[in-house]
């Protein structure tokens, strides 16, 4: 990656941009996705149908989408941040109004060819909108509470809609990713302390009045998974058995008994890492964690090299997002946190999540390719 002395890469030609794409990063993404294909192949008892083959198609489409997004000038994305946020908000409202019922939660819009999950896309557009907002903010700005009201509203609106679906996992992710954005923008520590203590006070109240029964069940199950081994605790108990029985070296590819005999629920989606750990043991699961951490590391490096605030914030926000996916999913299936429906991107079977994460990678790469563009404090550079 050569440093552009001119300080303005807007003039980069198409081929120059292509050369700027961090192909090792693309390779890493593909490698992680291939692990996912292998696990989906195993989940179907050694067949490409029905999951692995479709996931491959989606990933290929996603790869194209990613490269396209990467080539688009970052300033265009900055310009699009608010409109895109607005569009996804409209979709979220649409889901609440017309979304088809799925697993007791309204999450999808059926577009015929793909079931669109606006909440997944919101994870990206929210980060974009916040990055856009904080791009021009000085530390003085972020110190003023009135200045923070607008971004708070930007966060609160989608969170409320996603909670209403109801989708606890995604709303938590939106809140935490946004919190990270606020933190990175320089909001004072004590303000976070204030909010966190307020939340701690609010938890017992929301337990009583806001949470749905199934969400309460999940939390109770988390606190004592063995109390109801064949009910809601079943998933976690079986998942832990799968982890534990995998041992150091695992049972071997396609040999996981917990997964192949269907003791493990949802093995192709939320619990796919469990299956990986069962079949490849601690060696496999740690290796996979390291591989995933390399993706995160790339995110941090891209942020560090970027020379404009929007790019840094966007890159860090997207990286935090990816981290949250990983942490929430893996912690959940190991019984560290309550069961919340969060997939493991690139590995879990699922259209929107795959596409959303590829869009995120596209934006990350775009940040990298356009790391040196000039941008005015007010927002748009000289495009």
């Amino acid at each position, binding site marked *: 990656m050569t440093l552009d002395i001119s300080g303005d890469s807007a003039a980069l030609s198409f081929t120059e941009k292509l050369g700027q794409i961090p192909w090792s990063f693309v390779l890493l993404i593909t490698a992680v996705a291939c692990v996912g294909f292998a696990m989906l192949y195993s989940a179907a008892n050694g067949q490409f149908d029905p999951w692995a083959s479709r996931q491959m198609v989606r990933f290929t489409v996603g790869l194209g989408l990613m490269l396209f997004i990467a080539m688009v000038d970052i300033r265009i994305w900055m310009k699009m941040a608010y409109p895109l946020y607005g569009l996804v908000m409209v979709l979220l409202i649409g889901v609440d109004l017309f979304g088809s019922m799925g697993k007791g939660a309204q999450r999808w819009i059926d577009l015929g060819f793909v079931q669109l999950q606006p909440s997944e896309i919101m994870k990206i557009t929210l980060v974009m909108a916040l990055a856009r907002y904080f791009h021009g903010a000085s530390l003085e700005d972020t110190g003023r509470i009135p200045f923070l009201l607008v971004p708070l509203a930007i966060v609160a609106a989608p969170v409320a809609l996603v909670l209403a679906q109801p989708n606890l996992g995604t709303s938590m992710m939106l809140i935490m990713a946004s919190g990270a954005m606020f933190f990175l923008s320089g909001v004072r520590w004590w303000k976070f302390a204030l909010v966190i203590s307020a939340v701690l006070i609010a938890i017992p109240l929301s337990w009583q009045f806001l949470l749905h029964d199934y969400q309460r069940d999940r939390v109770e199950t988390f606190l004592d998974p063995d109390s109801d081994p064949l009910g809601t605790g079943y998933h976690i108990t079986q998942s832990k058995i799968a982890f534990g029985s995998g041992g150091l070296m695992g049972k071997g590819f396609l040999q996981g008994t917990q997964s192949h005999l269907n003791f493990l629920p949802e093995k192709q989606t939320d619990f796919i890492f469990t299956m990986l750990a069962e079949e490849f043991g601690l060696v496999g699961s740690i290796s996979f964690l390291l591989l995933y951490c390399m993706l995160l590391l790339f995110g941090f490096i891209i942020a560090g090299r970027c020379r404009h605030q929007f790019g840094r914030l966007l890159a860090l926000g997207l990286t935090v997002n990816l981290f949250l996916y990983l942490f929430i999913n893996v*912690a959940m299936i190991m019984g560290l946190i309550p069961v919340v429906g969060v997939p493991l991107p690139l590995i879990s079977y699922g259209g929107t999540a795959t596409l959303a994460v590829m869009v995120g990678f596209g934006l990350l790469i775009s940040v990298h390719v356009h790391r040196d563009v000039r941008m005015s404090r007010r927002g748009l550079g000289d495009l």
Partner: protein
Amino acid sequence: MSAFDRDAERQRMLSRRTMVLGGLQGAAVATLAGRLYYLQIVESDRYTVLAEDNRISLRLVAPPRGLITDRFGVPLAVNEQNFSAIIVSERAGDVQQILDEVGKLIPLTETDERRIQRDIQRSRSFAPITIKENLTWDQVAAIEVNLPDLPGVSIDVGQVRSYPFGEALSHVLGYVGAASEKDVEGSTDPLLTLPGFRVGKGGIEKQYDQALRGAAGNRQLEVNAVGRVIRELSRDPGQPGREVALTIDAKLQHYMHQRLSAEQSAAAVVMDVHTGGIQALCSSPSFDPNQFAMGIGYDAYQALLKDERTPLINKVIAGQYPPGSTFKMLTALAALESGIVDADHRVYCPGHMELGGHRFHCWRRGGHGSMDMVGSLMHSCDVYFYDIAGRIGMDRIAEMARKFGLGGRVGLEIPGEKPGLIPDPKWKRRALKQPWHQGETLIASMGQGYVLTTPLQLAVMTARLASGKAIQPHLLKSIEGQFTETTEWPGIDVKPENLAVVLKGMNAVTNVPGGTGYRARINVAGMEMAGKSGSAQVRRISMAERSTGVRSNESLPWRERDHALFVAYAPVHAPKYACAVIVEHGGGGGAVAAPIARDILLECQMLDAARATVAQQPPPSTDTTPVPPPAEGGTP
């Protein structure tokens, strides 16, 4: 502060906070790694066990039940294939339509269909549901041919206990049935928990249930979360049930069953006088054990229960009858052993005897005249036995009776044996709180009054008389080739010369003209039998009836007629078989029971002779030496 400075400060803040964020993420990932280590290394063993528990389902395998054979290896109880039609609903599609199709091939009642539909709803879709059990071969063929049009239907082969000799042996073998709570209680055998597992319910099947049952095997099956079997991991067939060989001779048994079926209600038993092995044991009428093994219907069972001829009761061991005159050998022997009376002791029989103001009648109203001991046995003269019983007293008679196996269970290996009763003064004081009367001794001397015996006890008595050995009756010849029989029995504690007198009397009964069983004698040289008849009164004959003439058995209702008894052994000169026969309410022992005993003992010896010929061995020496029937009989 310049814009540049402000920007630089903001960037420093961002960098710092990025480090914090990165640190937090690193810590979080480290937590995940720690948790992985905990689950996959620290707790691995525990979870491995749990995973195996999940995956492996241990299913018991019922071993085949041991065969029961007769003494020559002829199978008496076997396991037969039992065909059932089953349906797997997930492969059937429209279950009702398939059932309609099946209904055209085999009869299905509405109850059947309701049960099938209910079972299907209660079970997983891959679980086989029984449509109908116990299909005939034709029904199996009809379904097999139409299988292509009956998706989900298949024929399942199970095992069912079958008794080739049916009714003839049901009282010996018993039958098998589902384990009751009592069977399960206190047992740790896992087989009892198997649905449909059958245990012995009487007879040999019950007595040797443990040996016949074998030990449970198991199959390790890999199952998935909903219980569907994926594959078999291992199979331990278990220990098959052991083969039990009986002392029974199936041919003789079959013959005896046929012979007894001619009577309304009868029982007979034949045993080897040297080993005590039961050659045949038959109680008629009987029941079909195959019906029980398949599950007998309520009506059929009630009919068996209510029949006054008691087909469910094994009369040989559980029927208690006054032995009548078959008891007289023991009275005679007790008298001889006491030394008070010898064989030449003579009594004049005028047809009755007076004692304490009561008149005790002889069965022959006109009397027998002067009798000695052999003659009194031959003619069954009651007055002679009144006389000697009066002289020796009841205690001596009772003691002799017990020596010969009466008055207590003899201990045959099949359950349900009754003890019978040999009364004596002590017993009467204890049980009835009444003193013993001399008259009761007279009544007991000829096997009436309180005296009760089972046909098995009478056969044991006869065998002990014939062999002079205290043989024990038994049905078991060997288990899995391990022989248990013996001829080494202790001798009976009586003087041989006294025993000889009694045997001479028994010989006279059948082989001297005028003997009560002479007309039923065996006329084949070397196979002659000796015996004793008995007729046990089951009603009290009133003085009024005596004065007008005792009514004949033929004129009485069936239930009030005398029991006809006969005990015998053969051949006379070298006793081998002892036999006891009772025909319930049959009338006179000599006329009704003796011919049956003759036929049985003759058949018994004929079978032996036939087998000896087949085995191309020299015919038994008994055929070559003509044995003259002992001539000297005490004819009056």
